[in-house]
């Protein structure tokens, strides 16, 4: 079973709001030194989905990421967990793209990798929240996709996916090769063992430039965008909260109940 996982390096989405700033001139987020970079959490779950299949059936996991200044201690994490190979599309020409131009580059890299049965992506990246790269890769490669998976099982030439729906889930089956986007419902991701972490030292990432994957310069990165960002801004929160007081927590609770009845909320 040959598997490919696409991951994105993002600023830690768990960072407190107070450290979040936007540069209105460039419509981009201003990185703050205290906020670390991480792998987008859904992408970590995509890695976990692939690892689970590798645990059960064996196989090879190739991880691909795209960007510039990719921190090795961030993007190498899947290697420490048991992935086999890391390919970095690391070039200024790759960045500034939208879902489509990013998917175009990733699909080109996947074609170059050649053999694959399953491709995993996170359901959406924690920064752009776009949620489209997976579907676009599948379309470019002409393979079936299943979105928002919580369980993935590989069975001879097919993959069975529990796909999250609004009120439960569906069990969907598609032939491989196929692309699966993975959601947090997959459950907890594993932690790297010390030996796994140290072993990743020996797995140096492979760097590919646009020419290496035969990408047309006009279709990658900012040049290949179909979507234009007109504006990026922070919504203003200005609700005035009335704090209900009281001697003890029990008093506060009773006062809250009285208040809610008084203003006819309950």
């Amino acid at each position, binding site marked *: 079973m040959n598997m490919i996982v696409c991951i994105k390096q993002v600023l830690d*989405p768990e960072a407190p*709001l107070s450290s*979040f700033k*936007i540069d209105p001139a460039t419509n981009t987020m201003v990185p703050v030194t205290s906020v670390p970079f991480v792998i987008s959490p859904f992408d970590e779950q995509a890695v976990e989905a692939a690892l689970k299949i590798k645990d059960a059936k064996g196989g090879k996991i190739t991880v691909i990421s795209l960007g510039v200044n990719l921190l090795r201690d961030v993007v190498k994490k899947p290697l420490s967990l048991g992935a086999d190979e890391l390919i970095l599309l690391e070039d200024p020409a790759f960045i500034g793209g939208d*879902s489509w131009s990013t998917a175009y580059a990733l699909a080109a890299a996947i074609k170059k990798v050649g053999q694959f049965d399953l491709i995993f992506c996170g*359901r959406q990246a*924690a*920064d*752009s*929240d*776009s*949620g*489209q790269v997976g*579907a676009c890769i599948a*379309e*470019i490669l002409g393979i*079936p*996709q*299943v*979105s*928002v998976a*919580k369980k993935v099982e590989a069975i001879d030439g097919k993959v069975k996916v529990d*796909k*999250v*729906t*609004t*009120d*439960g*889930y*569906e*069990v*969907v*089956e*598609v032939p491989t090769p196929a692309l699966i986007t993975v959601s*947090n419902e997959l459950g907890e991701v594993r932690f790297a063992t010390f030996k796994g972490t140290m072993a990743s030292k020996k797995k140096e990432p492979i760097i590919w430039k646009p020419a290496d994957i035969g990408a047309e310069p006009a279709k990658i990165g900012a040049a290949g965008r*179909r*979507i*234009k*960002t*007109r*504006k*990026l*801004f*922070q*919504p203003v*929160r200005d*609700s005035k*909260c*009335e*704090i*209900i007081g009281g001697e003890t*927590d*029990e008093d*506060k*609770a009773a006062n*809250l*109940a009285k208040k*809610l009845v008084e203003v006819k*909320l*309950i």
Partner: protein
Amino acid sequence: MADNKGVMIFVEVIDGKLTNIAQELLGAGRKLANDLSEELSALIVGSGVANIAPEAIAYGADKIYVVDAPLLKDYRTDAYVAVVEKVVKQVNPRILLLGQTTIGRDLAPRAACRLITGAILDCIALDIDTATKQLLITKPVYGGNARAVYSMETLPQVATVRAKAMTALVPDSSRKGQVVIVDAGLDPAAIKTNVLQKVVAETTGIKLEDASVVVTGGRGIGGPEGFKQLEELAKVLKGAVGATRPPCDAGWAPDTIQIGLTGKIVSPYVYIAVAVSGASQHMAGCSGSKNIIAINRDAEAAIFKEARFGVVGDWKKIIPAFEAKVKELQSK
């Protein structure tokens, strides 16, 4: 494709009924179509869905395209993308809107990619740039910490819209519209996806999305026992229980009651947030609530910035006392 005109809505049908999101989309689409002085069409895809057309017209559509085939009974990406491709190429709309639903989020990007255009998912506001007639699409990004406004030059402009972000029109059954039946023209051999089983999680009591009171527990609830307490309170208030993501990930609460960016979107009359910090990812799912009441022991928690009433203290003490007092007041 300079001759693209009109707004098309991809309408979802569940149990033979127009979904809420479809009604909202038709309301939003009607407004955009009026702004453009162009037509509003609806695309209904499925098996045995033709009878929905009049309802869609009542909610604002001028023209209904119906693709009705047994093969389309279940949503399957390959089948539905082919249908959307076929109809869009035939109608050439300027704008194609879908709901940000299980189907919409899967279908929209793939269809847009095939139509060699762009898409924006999970939008909360739509406007027309009068100068270029381009759609201006507002979408929360960075987990709800920021908003982005996007546009695109390729046509059709595809977007999915978040539930409850738009308002449906009051249905007018006297409205007139045209119904066009389109043949699916599907080759069964080209459909590779199989839906083997549909599992619906059991829900007791009132459905979360429809509840007028929602009691939501956050990470601070600390375990599954706490959610039992919240359920009791919800029963007393005739409401439903929700959860932020961490309790669902930890297994204290079922995934189906997760509220937030990657869960359900609710906008009840009263939203009681218990031990919820108010992270943007969560607020994305409940900020439409009319009255937020926050109970948290951290006076600096972000939730108080969104709340109308707040109590600073330990929920373990507050919730039972609150429930008791509410019962007492109700009995009077």
